[in-house]
C-alpha cells in the first residue's frame, strides 16, 4: 500500500470500498416539503437552544425559533412556514429523545423565506452564529466558535476538509462540484475572519473532478491538496498530518499547531448566510446503501422525519433493515425513523439485515487492529482493559485519544466489536474522573 499511495496521507488507516459511484454523479435534488417537522433543540455540541416561540405561533420559513443558550450553542430556524404544533420531547437520531419544536407545515404556503438580505456588515462569527451554522461534516460543533481565534493564539492555515472519507457519502463531493465558487468564497471569508495566511482545501483522490473544478474556479487564491483515498483521511488530525505534516499533540486541538479545520459544506453554508442572509434550514443528505436502489443526494429541510425521506426514495417497508445516520464507519443505527434529519447528518444509509450477521471469534492476537489505528493505539489491549475495568491502565494506554473511527473493528478478522468496547472504556475513565 505504501508503494502505491503516492499522494500525501497519514500512517495506518484502512481501505473500505468507497461505494461512492452509486451516488457521485447524482446532481443534488430537492426533498419536497412534508407535513410535519421536528427541530431538536440539541443538534450540536454544547448547550441546548432556548425556544422563543410558543405552541400555536405561526412561523415563517427561515424565522428564528430558538436562540443559542451560551457561546457553545446554536440558533435554530423554522425549516418551513407553518404553525408550532408542540414543543416536546421527540425521537432524535442520537437515540436519546430530545426536546424539539414541532412545526406543522402550511400546505398552502409558497415556502418563501422571509427577506433578510446580505449580512456583510457584521463580523463573520456573528453572521454565522445568527444563521445557526454548525460543522457540516458530522461533528456538529457550532461553527462560530471556530471562527474566532482566542486571545494570544494565531492561526496560520485554514484547512478545508473535502475528504469525505466515509464510504457511500457524496454530499460534500456534490457541493464542491456544483457550487465551487460558493465554497471558495466561504473559504475566503473564514480565512479572513481567522487572519490565516493561507487556506488549503484537502480533497481525496477519488474526487479529482471536484479538485479540478475548485482549482479552476479559485485561480490560485486557494490551494487544493489531493490526498490519498484512505479512511479516516477526513479526521481533522489525519488531514492536518497529510496536508501540512503537523502532528496535533495528544489531547490538544488543531489550534495548538496553528490550524483550524472546517468542512467544505460549512464553507458553503457560511457563504449562503453572508451573501443571502439564509440561515441553516436545510442541508445536503446522501441517501444510499445496498438496500437503496436509487441513491440520491438531496437538499433536505432540517427536521424532516427520516421515514419521510426514505419514503421519498421509494423505501417504506423497513422491517429487518438497518438504517444508519452518517457513514457506515462512524454512523449510528436508528431505532425510530420518526427521528428527524439534523444539521450534522451527512447521510442516511440502508443496509439489509443479513449484512450484519457476523459471529464473534476469539482474538487471535494478529495485530491487525494496531496496524489500522490512525492514533497508534493498541485496540485489542484497550478492549481487554475495558473488560477488566482497569481505569489506570486505560489511561496509560491513552484511551481518550481514540476518536472512535472504527478502523480497528473494521479490520478485526475475529469480528470483535473493538470500538464499541473502547467507547465504554472511555466512558469508564470519564466517570472515574468525576
Amino acid at each position, binding site marked *: 500500500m505504501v508503494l502505491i499511495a503516492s499522494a500525501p496521507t497519514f500512517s495506518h488507516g*484502512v481501505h473500505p*470500498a468507497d461505494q461512492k459511484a452509486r451516488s457521485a454523479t447524482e446532481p443534488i435534488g430537492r426533498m419536497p416539503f412534508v407535513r410535519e417537522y421536528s427541530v431538536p433543540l440539541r443538534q450540536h455540541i454544547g448547550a441546548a437552544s432556548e425556544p422563543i416561540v410558543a405552541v400555536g405561533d405561526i412561523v415563517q420559513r427561515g424565522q428564528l425559533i430558538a436562540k443559542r443558550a451560551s457561546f457553545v450553542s446554536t440558533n435554530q430556524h423554522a425549516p418551513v412556514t407553518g404553525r408550532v404544533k408542540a414543543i416536546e420531547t421527540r425521537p432524535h437520531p442520537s437515540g436519546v429523545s430530545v426536546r424539539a419544536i414541532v412545526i406543522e407545515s402550511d400546505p398552502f404556503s409558497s415556502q418563501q423565506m422571509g427577506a433578510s438580505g446580505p449580512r456583510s456588515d457584521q463580523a463573520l462569527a456573528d453572521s454565522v452564529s445568527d444563521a445557526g451554522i454548525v460543522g457540516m461534516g458530522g461533528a456538529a460543533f457550532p461553527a462560530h466558535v471556530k471562527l474566532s481565534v482566542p486571545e494570544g493564539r494565531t492561526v496560520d492555515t485554514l484547512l478545508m476538509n473535502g475528504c469525505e472519507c466515509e464510504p457511500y457519502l457524496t454530499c460534500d463531493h456534490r457541493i464542491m462540484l456544483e457550487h465551487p465558487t460558493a465554497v471558495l468564497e466561504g473559504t475566503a471569508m473564514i480565512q479572513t475572519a481567522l487572519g490565516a495566511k493561507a487556506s488549503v482545501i484537502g480533497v481525496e483522490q477519488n474526487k479529482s473532478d471536484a479538485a479540478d473544478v475548485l482549482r479552476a474556479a479559485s485561480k490560485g487564491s486557494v490551494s487544493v491538496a489531493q490526498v490519498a483515498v484512505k479512511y479516516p483521511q477526513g479526521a481533522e*488530525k489525519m488531514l492536518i*498530518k497529510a496536508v501540512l505534516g503537523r*502532528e*496535533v*499533540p*495528544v*489531547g*490538544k486541538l488543531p489550534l495548538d499547531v496553528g490550524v483550524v479545520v472546517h468542512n467544505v459544506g460549512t464553507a458553503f453554508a457560511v457563504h449562503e448566510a453572508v451573501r443571502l442572509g439564509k440561515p441553516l434550514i436545510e442541508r445536503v443528505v446522501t441517501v444510499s446503501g445496498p438496500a437503496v436502489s436509487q441513491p440520491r443526494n438531496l437538499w433536505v429541510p432540517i427536521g424532516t422525519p427520516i421515514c419521510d425521506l426514505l419514503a421519498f426514495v421509494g423505501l417504506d417497508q*423497513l*422491517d*429487518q*433493515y*438497518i*438504517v*444508519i445516520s452518517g457513514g*457506515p*464507519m*462512524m*454512523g*449510528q*443505527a*436508528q*431505532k*425510530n*425513523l420518526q427521528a428527524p434529519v439534523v444539521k450534522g447528518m451527512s447521510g442516511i*444509509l440502508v443496509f439489509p*439485515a443479513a*449484512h*450484519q450477521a*457476523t459471529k464473534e*471469534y*476469539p*482474538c*487471535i*492476537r*494478529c*495485530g491487525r487492529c*494496531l496496524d489500522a489505528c*490512525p*492514533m*497508534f*493505539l*493498541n485496540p*485489542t*489491549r484497550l478492549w481487554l482493559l475495558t473488560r477488566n475495568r482497569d481505569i489506570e491502565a486505560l489511561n496509560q494506554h*491513552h484511551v481518550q*485519544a481514540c476518536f472512535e473511527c*472504527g478502523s480497528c*473493528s*473494521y*479490520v*478485526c*478478522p*475475529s*469480528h470483535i*466489536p473493538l*470500538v*464499541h468496547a473502547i467507547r465504554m472504556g472511555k466512558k469508564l475513565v470519564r466517570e472515574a474522573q468525576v
Partner: protein
Amino acid sequence: MSKLLLVSSPFVRDERNTPQLMRDVIGSLVPILIMSMWVFGVIALLMVAVTGATAVVTERLVTSKRSLHDGSALLTGLLLGFVLPPGLPLWMGALGSAFAVGLGKAAFGGLGANIFNPALLGRAFLQAAFPEAMTTWVAPQMGFWQLPERSLAWPLMGSHVDGISAATPLGGFKFQGLTTDLSEMVVGTTAGSLGETATWLLVLCGLWLALRKAFDWRLPVSTLFSVALLSWVLHATVPERCADPMTMLGSGGLMFAAVFMVTDPVTTPVTAKGMWLFGFGTGVLVVLIRSFGGLPEGVMYAVLLMNAVTPWINRFTQPRVFGGLA
C-alpha cells in the same frame, strides 16, 4: 419500526475472517502433504491423519464450548504431524497431538489464549519423552507403500529402530561434516520431518499465504533475513561450525517454521516493532543453536523461546500514540 436492527458501527467490515484465515493455512498444507507423500510415501498421510484427527477429538473432549469450527484445533494437529519424523510410531503422534491441544491450547483457555505454539509444544513434549524415536530419520523415497514396522507399533512396545536410518542435512553437517547438495534440499528429497524438506514448495505456499494476507509478512521475512545475515557472518568466521546461508535457509525445519510457526498470530507479538524483534530473535537463536548447541536443529526451541518472551516484547514495543511525546 420495532423490527429495525440496532447494531453499532462500523457497519462495513474487511472480508477476511478468522475461520477463513485458518482455512487458508490448512489449504496450503494440502500440496505439502502431497509432496511429503511423494518423498516419504503413505506414512506421511497416515501420520498427518492421525495427528489431525486426534487434535479434533481432543478439543471436543476438553472444551465445553463447540469451538471446533474455527479450525484451529485441526490446524494444530496437522502442523504437528508435519514436524514429526517419518516412521515415528503413530501412537506417539497421537499422544503428541492430544498433548498439544489438551495442554498446549485448551488448558490456556483456547484459541488466542495460549502462550506457546501448541504444535511445537507437542513436538517438544515428544522430543523429551521419546528422544531416540524423535531423532531417527528414514531415508527419503523408500517406496510409496513402504511402512517402517515401528510406525504401526502398539503403544510402549517395539519402538526399536528398524529400516534404513539416514542423516538429515543438518545432522550430516554437524556430526560428520558432510554437506548436502543444495538442489536436493530445494527439491525436498532429503531426510527430515514430514513437511519440512521441500523448500521450493514451502516458499510458494508462503508467498500465496502472504498474498492472501493470511499472516503478517514481517514475521517470516525478519526470521529468514536474520538467519541469512548471521549465518553469512558466522560461516565466514567459523565455517566448520556454521553452514553457509543457503544451507541454513534450505535445511531443517526453518522454512516450514518460517511459513507456519513464526506466523502463528496467537503466539507472536501484536505490535509491528515486536514482530520484527520476534523474527530477528528467532533467526538469531536458530543459527546459534544449530552452530553451537548440542543438537543439529534448533528451530523448535528458538520459536518456543521467543514465544515465551512475546508478552514481554509486546509490553516494551507499544506504539507511540499519535501526537504523543517521542
